[in-house]
């Protein structure tokens, strides 16, 4: 009797780790067989655990997209949890791809997704375990190119020394272009390969630039022409849509068919980075959405479809899509869900129609406790909207409502915090009217000012302030049907430092990682003491990044990146926030001249066509 299952060198490691299913793949649709004659071997690397990375919609597009290119082949890797890292080191085995078990060092390109600042140490772990020198300057011609994309790529400076190239914008444009150039550069030196990428749209080569700092901010000099413009698909019409999707065999956070309704958002919430980064709005047609949703349910066997977009309820095609999908999905017993709900009766009604048996809860994000503060952040939700939404949700039969808020917002006063407690209590009151067991879960996150938003100049509330405000809100809520949770401030602070960080933080990152910082976004692994020591050791003052309001003309370390929305617009919006003025969504009113008016904004073109 022979069982070669046990000959797998990783088998003993799987046996000794807590959730081995994270590392074994065995998915449906994972691109095998391997393309033997591919000239560009790509490894998509997600710097967090499998169950989170597999829920990321981007890979469901980029993976089949790369697979569809003749010259390329693609595999994936996720960050091993600390127990697996220990096992890999103990056994001297490299971090390898899920599909073919190839070590990261044997790929042509390793492409990281930058979703969250607190996953940056994981990038170093993955490079190190994958046998790739951490610093770009130490890599040789045989080492892979290490590139990065995702929202964090629009502020990549804290990672600059570790990355060879940064891709900004829609992967549908950047990835095929990279593959084409690298395929033509097979056998070339590393520097020649980088040369080949240098003039592609949306590609930034940190190694080709030098940063200096003075009292006015950061100065970047480069052989590339600055600013680098984010590469943006003009429209989603005819954009790549895969045949099938990757279906995990182990459980993941979002276990469903992800269908993108549109990209971009023009609601203009002033705290929201995604809302600024992904403009302009590009919708898929109802036909495309319906066709993809049906094809993917058939090809994957998934029991649920999630309509994913920044604010799905804003889609003009949504009503049509739901109506057309409903009968087909009922027949196939597939559920349809809307992961983000707008605060109005229409959205609740829609959610109710999708979920005849109100099992789980509903989640809404009023974000702030008073009308004044919601005006400051340009969250177009009124007291009335909140009242009507809660009323409708309980009336439809839901028992659990989750409400998301932020604290530490610019100009915040005691009254704004009291407002959060008031909304929570009011929600419980409305709930009780309809259901005896109504429950309200309030979650309050510390606000982090993000680059490329109107709040990029703001001071971030300190750890002590956040924890005091969190305690304060909690102390105001006496209703037993309401639970209040708030995030402890240390992680929020670190996120803030890296969000608006510059190249000087790379040393701190390396130092913290060397001393054991891992999975900083996870409470069980986060070690503030390591970070404190790392900032001290590298003589970098963390407060400088978060604890001061920045002058209007400060040169930011992301000024060389042009996302399309102009700095003037952001400043105007910042001023309007101080006046507590709302800026209406341009889809339903006038153009707010965000910067895209000079670049071919679809909304504007439509407006012009109508008025002609």
């Amino acid at each position, binding site marked *: *009797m*022979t*069982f*070669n*299952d*046990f000959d*797998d060198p990783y*088998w*003993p*490691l*799987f*046996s*000794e780790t807590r959730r*081995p*299913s994270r*590392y*074994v*793949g*065995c*998915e*449906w649709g*994972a691109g*095998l067989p391997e393309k033997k004659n591919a000239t560009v071997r790509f490894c998509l690397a997600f710097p967090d655990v499998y169950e989170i990375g597999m829920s990321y919609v981007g890979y469901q597009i980029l993976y089949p997209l790369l697979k569809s290119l003749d010259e390329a082949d693609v595999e994936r890797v996720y960050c091993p949890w600390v127990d697996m890292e220990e096992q890999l080191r103990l056994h001297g085995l490299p971090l390898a791809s899920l599909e073919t078990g190839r070590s990261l060092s044997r790929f042509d390109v390793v492409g990281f997704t930058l979703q969250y600042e607190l996953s940056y140490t994981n990038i170093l772990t993955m490079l190190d375990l994958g046998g790739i020198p951490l610093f770009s300057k130490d890599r040789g011609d045989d080492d892979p190119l290490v590139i990065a994309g995702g929202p964090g790529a629009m502020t990549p400076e804290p990672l600059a020394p570790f990355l060879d190239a940064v891709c900004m914008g829609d992967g549908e444009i950047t990835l095929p272009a990279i593959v084409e150039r690298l395929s033509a550069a097979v056998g070339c030196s590393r520097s020649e390969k980088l040369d080949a990428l240098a003039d592609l749209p949306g590609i930034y080569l940190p190694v080709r630039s030098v940063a200096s700092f003075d009292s006015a901010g950061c100065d970047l000099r480069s052989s590339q022409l600055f600013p680098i413009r984010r590469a943006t698909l003009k429209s989603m019409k005819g954009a790549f849509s895969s045949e099938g999707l990757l*279906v995990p*065999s*182990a*459980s993941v956070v979002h*276990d469903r068919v992800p269908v993108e309704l549109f990209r971009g958002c023009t609601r203009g919430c002033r705290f929201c980075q995604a809302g600024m980064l992904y403009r302009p709005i590009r919708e898929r047609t109802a036909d495309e959405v319906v066709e993809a949703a049906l094809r993917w349910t*058939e*090809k*994957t*066997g*998934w*029991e649920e479809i999630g309509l994913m977009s920044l604010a799905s309820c804003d889609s003009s095609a949504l009503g049509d899509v739901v109506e057309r999908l409903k009968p087909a999905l009922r027949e*196939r*017993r597939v559920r349809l869900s809307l992961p983000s709900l707008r605060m109005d009766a229409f959205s609740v009604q829609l959610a109710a129609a999708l979920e005849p*048996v109100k*099992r789980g809860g509903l989640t809404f994000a009023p974000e702030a406790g008073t009308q004044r503060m919601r005006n400051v952040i340009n969250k177009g939700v009124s007291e009335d909207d909140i009242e009507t939404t809660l009323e409708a949700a309980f009336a439809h039969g839901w028992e659990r409502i989750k409400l998301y808020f932020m604290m530490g917002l610019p100009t915040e006063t005691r009254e704004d915090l009291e407002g959060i407690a008031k909304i929570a209590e009011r929600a419980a009151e409305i709930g009780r009217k309809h259901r005896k067991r109504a429950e309200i879960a309030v979650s309050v996150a510390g606000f982090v000012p993000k680059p490329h938003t109107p709040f990029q100049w703001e001071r971030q509330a300190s750890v002590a302030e956040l924890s005091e405000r969190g305690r304060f809100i909690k102390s105001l809520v006496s209703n037993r049907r309401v639970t209040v949770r708030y995030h402890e401030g240390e992680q929020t602070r670190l996120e803030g430092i890296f969000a608006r960080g510059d190249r000087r933080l790379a040393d701190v990152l390396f130092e913290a990682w060397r001393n054991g910082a891992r999975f900083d976004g996870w409470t069980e692994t986060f070690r503030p003491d390591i970070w404190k020591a790392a900032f001290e050791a590298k003589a970098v003052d963390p407060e400088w990044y978060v604890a001061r309001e920045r002058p209007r003309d400060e040169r930011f370390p992301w000024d060389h990146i042009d996302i399309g929305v102009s700095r003037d617009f952001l400043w105007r919006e910042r001023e309007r926030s101080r006046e507590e003025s709302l800026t209406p969504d341009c889809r339903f009113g006038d153009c707010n001249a965000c910067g895209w008016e000079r670049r071919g904004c679809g909304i504007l073109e439509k407006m012009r066509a109508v008025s002609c």
Partner: protein
Amino acid sequence: MLKVRIVFSKRGRACFIPHIALPAVFSRSATRAGIRFVQTEGFSPRPKLSLGPELPVGIVALCEPMDVWLEEWRASFFDSWQRKLPDGFSLGGWEEAPLGNLGNSCEGAEYLIRVRDGGACEAVRSGYPWPEWVCRADYDGEWFRVVTERPGEHGPGALIRDLVEFGKMSGWAGVNVVRRVVGRLSGGELTGEKRVLPLVSLFSGDTNGN
């Protein structure tokens, strides 16, 4: 509505996909193959499926039974389903409208256990007190062939933990375990050695490894 009993194997890295994830693996693959499950009643209907005794991760399994309730079954479905399974999973046989409930039909389980460390293996061989629910345990020079009764009550997890402790091994990695078959017990004092037979008649798999 039709009950079909299926036996399947879980090989290679798929052995680390937990038991609890298997209903989705099978129902999704069936959907991909155009096979329709009957749904359970109640607030959250799900595909009606019943798995055999729990199998911890890290165990190679060659012949595991499950009952599935389908709207329709044709012999050709077996191959189409097979083609839509993820890597490492494979169907070994089927039987339409089997008698009896699955739990009661699973009378025994047969394991192959290899203790990697020579010293620990010798210790187990010469002195390990097999629990009373183990009705057969012999050694062929490499593998212990172990037959257990009532697999629903006595899974391999506790046995391996005990073996690891008894043999003073560093962890689970020191023991390789194969569950060859879960099914009907046969043999005994009068008819010879205890064995376990697959629960389906149309079994086309292999219980001897590669």
